[in-house]
């Protein structure tokens, strides 16, 4: 069970008020945004919504496109979620995805051979590339205390530019007019499973969600990840190898982001080219925040994928700009963050305790290592 589902379930007859508020505000704000945007385009809200859903789920191809969109979003969601549960905010999924894609296509193009051997190797290479891209932020965080938010954001640029350098340089398809790798040869393109269904990568993404759901909730490691994420100090004192757990969680997440790149290039785009990638890695951040757990990531990714694919036909048929869906994706994130930082969200479940008034605060502050004075 994930946090999301647990929050949906009434506990002791009560729904978490912060969660209810988030959902309520999201719905209200989304309808408001929809209404404003549609009014400008001279369309009606119901019309826009129905074309959007029609465009995402109406026809067989639409459903397949939605599935294909779902897979990288969900994997990148995991890429953010797993480190996040261990208290590490991995904003570097986009970069990890890109290097993953490049690694996968490089393996496929250089090795050739039987897909049964080469494809698993390509996936492994993608995971490894994603992991490698997360090493610098991890080391900087654990050794030097550098904020992982900054380092992972900046490494996105490094990774994207590295990929750009490769596809305009050594890996460039000689016959292409712009920076792009040669296409993935047909035998290595991910097959539809079953025939006419979603491509293999979608199943891989679903399997990854399932595996991490089990890992997080049913394994010693997952429990330790959650403990570290909630309270690093207490986990340390409980004998958890805090650094080790953090590293494994981050590396695991980054591997998923790398894997996302590989299934996208082998299953959908068939090459890595300039501007080949939508911001799946960044969408993953929203997905992880809102999902809270692998099952939550699955649900939110599905919704986001429906919005993404539905947007195209919505724009074509109603004239409402496709950018509306990014608004709709952003609203819940903003609402979530606003509610969480409000008093309701920050409200500690524990009763207020002040054993000795404000006199105790000095030693507590010291124990927490957060004295703010400039005493030197």
């Amino acid at each position: 069970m994930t946090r999301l589902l647990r929050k949906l379930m009434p506990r002791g007859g009560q729904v978490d008020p912060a969660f209810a508020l988030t959902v309520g505000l999201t719905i209200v704000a989304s309808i408001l945004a929809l209404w404003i945007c549609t009014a400008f385009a001279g369309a009606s809200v119901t019309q826009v919504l129905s074309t959007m859903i029609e465009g995402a789920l109406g026809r067989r191809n639409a459903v397949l496109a939605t599935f294909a969109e779902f897979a990288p979003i969900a994997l990148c969601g995991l890429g953010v979620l797993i480190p996040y549960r261990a208290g590490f905010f991995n904003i570097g999924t986009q970069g990890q995805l890109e290097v993953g894609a490049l690694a996968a296509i490089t393996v496929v193009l250089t090795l050739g051979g039987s897909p049964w051997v080469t494809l698993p190797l390509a996936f492994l290479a993608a995971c490894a590339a994603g992991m490698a891209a997360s090493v610098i932020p991890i080391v900087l965080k654990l050794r030097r205390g550098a904020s992982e938010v900054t380092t992972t954001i900046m490494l996105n640029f490094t990774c994207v530019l590295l990929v750009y350098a490769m596809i305009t340089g050594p890996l460039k398809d000689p016959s292409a007019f712009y920076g792009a790798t040669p296409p993935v040869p047909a035998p290595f393109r991910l097959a539809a499973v079953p025939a006419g269904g979603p491509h293999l990568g979608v199943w891989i993404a679903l399997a990854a969600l399932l595996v991490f759901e089990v890992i997080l909730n049913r394994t010693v490691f997952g429990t330790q990840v959650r403990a570290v994420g909630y309270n690093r100090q207490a986990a340390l004192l409980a004998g958890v190898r805090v650094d080790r757990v953090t590293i494994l969680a981050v590396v695991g997440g980054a591997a998923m982001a790398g894997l996302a790149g590989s299934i996208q290039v082998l299953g959908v785009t068939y090459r890595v080219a300039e501007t080949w990638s939508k911001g799946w890695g960044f969408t993953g951040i929203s997905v992880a925040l809102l999902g809270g757990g692998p099952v939550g990531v699955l649900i939110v990714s599905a919704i986001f994928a429906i919005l993404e694919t539905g947007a195209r036909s919505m724009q074509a048929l109603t004239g409402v700009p496709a950018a509306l869906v990014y608004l709709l994706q952003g609203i819940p994130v903003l609402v979530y963050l606003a509610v969480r930082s409000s008093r309701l969200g920050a409200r500690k479940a524990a009763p207020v305790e002040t054993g000795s008034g404000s006199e105790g605060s000095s030693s507590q502050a010291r124990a927490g290592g957060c004295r703010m004075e400039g005493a030197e």
Partner: protein
Amino acid sequence: MAARGATEAVGPAEGPDEAFVGQAAVLEGIHKSFGPVRALVDVSLELKRGEIRALVGENGAGKTTLMTILYGMLKPDQGHIGIWGRRVGSGWSPREAMRQGVGMLHQHFSLVPTHTVLENVLLPQLTWGALRPDWKKHRAALGKLCEEYGFQLRLDAPLRTLAVGQQQQVEILKLLYQGTRLLILDEPTSVLTPQQIDSLLNLLAILRRQGHTVVLITHKLPEAMSVADAITVLRGGRVIDTVARDSTTPEALARMMVNRDISGLDLEFESRPSAEGSAGKTVLAVRDLVVGGEGGRPAVDGVSLEVKRGEILGVAGVAGNGQMELAQAIVGLSQPSDGPVVMSGKDITRLDVRGRKNLGLGFIPEDRHEHAMFPEMSVRDNLTLERLEQPPLSRAGLVRTQECRRAAIEAMKEYDVRAMGPGVPTGTLSGGNQQKVVLARVLSGKPKVIVACQPTRGLDFAATRYVRERLWAASEEGVGILLISSELEELLTLSHRIVVMFRGRIVGEFKRGSFDIERIGLLMTGQGRTP
């Protein structure tokens, strides 16, 4: 944290009041509770204009709480406040207090390290409209003020280049420049060196001469005796007495600060065997332990102690005298700069927290939210986390949920943890039950040694009693316990031996049966060291 009903409590009638005339400040019948803890009970206090008043008491006596109420940071549940002969209204806040010349020097400075002294002092007065403050005018005025009060400050020096004592002067200068005439200083000497303390005390005398009223919150009796005109003793949220400096002695004050009705303690503990533990072998020892602190002075300065099997060794002391640093060095949260930590004859100084824990070192941290608990995680997860890697609770890395549940329910039963079930988030439990979870986790690890810091802080009577019972029971089973507490009553009840810590050193040792409360109190406050 403002309590409901406080608006009425502060009183409807704002304005001159007979009772308040002639006083700098009057607090009348102040009550304040934090949840179940009654921090202040019917406290009344009058401050004369131009006097230095020392407020002394142990940690948790309510000194700071009382003064933050006077300063408007906390609203009293009941009671009235008067300033300069006028009763204050319901809008009493630090802002209003500052406007009326009441200023408070907090233990933690609020200064901007990269700004200069001048900028720091002016910061509270600069308004958005003032695009170009009249630096020249302020500089001249401040220069004069510095001269008047004997501050040796260079106004253009960046704050971070200043010593702590000078930074404190900047804070005081800031208050004075805002027109503060009633200064409240909260433990101002705790961060200072002896020389800096002297110059601060001199400054207080100058302030008095200039007509200021000063409140000095302290637990160090020598300071109170050297400079105050009158001394008010608080204990357990009540004013015990206010005495003129000349008509009292440090001994009398110490007695007032710590004296308790010993017969009111848990008598069962009293009647238990006393020196049983001291015959056993040593399970925990530190020798000449030094732990670095802030400002160059070591927080722990050459401490040696031994805990025997089955013994509870109490460490008495006012908070901030190195006890927490001692505990952290023992459990492995920090590395001592000198001196070994030895457990059952094995040097564990180089082991990390996990390594020490695996050898049987249990730790009950002072602040359970910060260091011991996962409020968002279930009671089950909290209870089993430490043992999760071992066989019954997991197999091949997979958690055996049923086993964990069973273990959690068992522990909940054994340690009387009252919760709806093992699945509820621990944060929803009451403070007492949370602490029982911590206790259960530590004790079910079958430790040989426990370091317990303030194990009953913030707990109600029943929970306090329960925790103490369990610690005592553990010691009877042979666990050596280092009990660090600033509550003397707790130490007197539980300890086989008590050592007193002051400024990072052990300044006295007492055996059960010959506990001398008055002497312990004096030693805690820096007086009457053992020769």
